[in-house]
């Protein structure tokens, strides 16, 4: 009797997960299906794969510089991810491990920085980069995305469960404070790094307003701007559009798949 109750609960859990997964995947499935259909069929809501994939791809490659946009997006997202993970995890670690009243207050102040909509600070920021002669430069693109209060806060909060014994032991072994960070903290916290990497990459990849104004040369066009162009004509080819958006989400999915095992391995597994 007890076993069947347990089984029942387990089946309930599976059912719940299956329903949620279905709801989650469905629009993505539709997007990939639509990429293989003609515009008229996409609008009719076809759920069956079509035969237009090659034609859509030909049109997409003819009308846009897809590879350049993919490469640009990848380049900026990768640079932003690596730099911001490094800078933000350093700060988050500093805020938590060496916390005192002053640092706690500073953390709270930093949090305020994300509470103003970007549209409002866009013009002053643009003016600043214009005066510094950094318009249309990679530095101009990446600089404001390196340090975000969100990531710092994420690392600070995650560090709370970081075992202090590890730090004490490492200090006794003569490791420097920075040595502890690099040799002990980073490996142990790899699940947090994985989550931060996925999220930061995705945000940088989808970033729209800032690249739009800071990178005005077509050579620097990113995927979101390419997609914006595809939706701007008098006649929108929905098959081509869906193919472009489908291609644009693949990198984020790949990054997630590559890093997702870190969301399953416990702290013991990673400390080894």
């Amino acid at each position, binding site marked *: 009797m007890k076993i069947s109750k347990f089984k029942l609960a387990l089946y309930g859990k599976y059912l719940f997960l299956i329903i949620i997964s279905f709801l989650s995947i469905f629009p993505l499935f539709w997007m990939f299906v639509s990429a293989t259909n003609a515009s008229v069929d996409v*609008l009719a809501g076809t759920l069956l794969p079509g035969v237009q994939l090659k034609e859509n791809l030909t049109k997409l490659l003819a*009308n846009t510089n897809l590879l350049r946009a993919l490469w640009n997006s990848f380049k900026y997202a990768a640079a932003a991810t690596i730099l911001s993970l490094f800078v933000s995890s350093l700060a988050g670690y500093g805020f938590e491990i060496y916390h005192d009243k002053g640092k706690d207050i500073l953390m709270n102040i930093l949090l305020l920085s994300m509470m103003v909509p970007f549209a409002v600070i866009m*013009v002053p920021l643009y003016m600043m980069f214009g005066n510094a002669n950094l318009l249309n430069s990679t530095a101009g693109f990446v600089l404001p995305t390196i340090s975000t209060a969100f990531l710092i806060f994420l690392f600070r909060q995650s560090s709370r469960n970081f075992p202090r014994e590890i730090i004490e032991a490492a200090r006794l072994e003569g490791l420097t404070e920075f040595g502890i960070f690099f040799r002990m903290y980073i490996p142990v916290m790899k699940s947090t790094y994985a989550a931060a990497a996925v999220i930061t990459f995705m945000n940088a990849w989808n970033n729209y307003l800032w690249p739009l104004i800071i990178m005005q040369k077509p050579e620097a066009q990113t995927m979101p701007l390419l997609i914006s162009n595809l939706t701007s004509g008098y006649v*929108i080819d929905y098959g081509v559009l869906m193919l472009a958006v489908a291609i644009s989400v693949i990198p984020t999915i790949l990054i997630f798949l590559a890093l997702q095992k870190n969301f399953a391995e416990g702290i013991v597994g990673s400390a080894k």
Partner: protein
Amino acid sequence: MKKKLAVLFLINILIFAFSGLTAAQSGDQVTLTVWCWDPSFNIYAMEEAAKLYRDINPDVTIKVEETAWEDIQTRLTTALSANQAATLPDIILMQDNALIKNVSTFPDAFYDLTNSAIDFSKFADYKIALTTHNGKNYGVPFDNGAAINAMRVDVLEEAGYTIDDFTDITWQEFIEKGADVRKKTGKPLLSVIAGQPDLLMVMLQSAGTWLFNDAGEVNIANNDVLKEIVDIYVELVDKGIMVQVNDWDQYISSFNSGTVAGTINGCWIIGSIVPQKSQAGDWRITNIPRLASVDGSVNYSNQGGSSWMVMANSKHPQIAADFLNKTFAGSIELYETILPSSGALATYLPAGDSEVYNMPQPFFGGQKIYSEITDYAAQVPQVNYGVYNYEARDAVGAAITKIINGQDVDKALQEAEETVKFLMW
């Protein structure tokens, strides 16, 4: 003293030499950057114009950078507000409904084309009205937004009508016949996006009125023409002659799928009708219904459209103006080239007489739609969209939603007027 003179002399020579140098450079290679959107339409036209101009002035290269309209507006506003106009291109394509707003907000940002050689009389009057601010011309009109009533004649035939029954009619006649078609075939004649007042504004312009009066004051709450238009709109919906959909893709799909037997919009909507090849031969176009009770109301109007502008910050504004003059404002050949493959209809009136514009179109049962549309364009009443056009558009869109949901017309329009007045301070 002698030394000073010598130094001055030297400086003079230097300045002279440098100015000679820069003059020589500007006679050399010039690159004009253009921002516009839509590869199959505006960009294509611009590239053809560039080819044409190469024969006239081989030193000029046109570099087209594809940029969506909303993106152009965002970059424009940001750069001009931040005093970084140098990053902007030489020529931009501007939506007509935003042109006066931008010119009046950033008075020094756009190059005044009034005294260039461009002959503005060759364009439809209403387009010139939309690109003129304080007596100065700021744009070369390009794409045509003349309103058309596109209909499926196979559906009309089923109900015993022809396209002629819907030509030169009033809205009252349209409603009578539309109700009949609906009864006999089950199909509505129109679809609109709920909350978007485009159709209302098409009707307004056909009566020569707008949401602002000539003095630029809001004209919503006490606008009798608008009230009559709203009544027609509500009647169209109530009688099932017009269905409301949620967004642009559902709007396109409503006639592509054959759920709806027609549409009224700017003539550029043709581009979204013709991809549905199974309906080839079934479509015709005609002019739009007029308002019977309003003096001066005609069967012609406009929806959308855009114009080329030269930026004041351009290093070669005269060359840019000359380029536009010799191509978009002076070359029938250009319009003949771009029409067949793109369906890019212009408001350059002389082009309407060309042979290409008189070609029968099989998708429309052999109708010569392009010359017809050019005729329509010449008869569109002039209105001034005004500086606060977007504010008014949103407010009226909200009002029509409330009215359809049952709110009193006067109250809803009063609220809309107050909202726009509030935003105009």
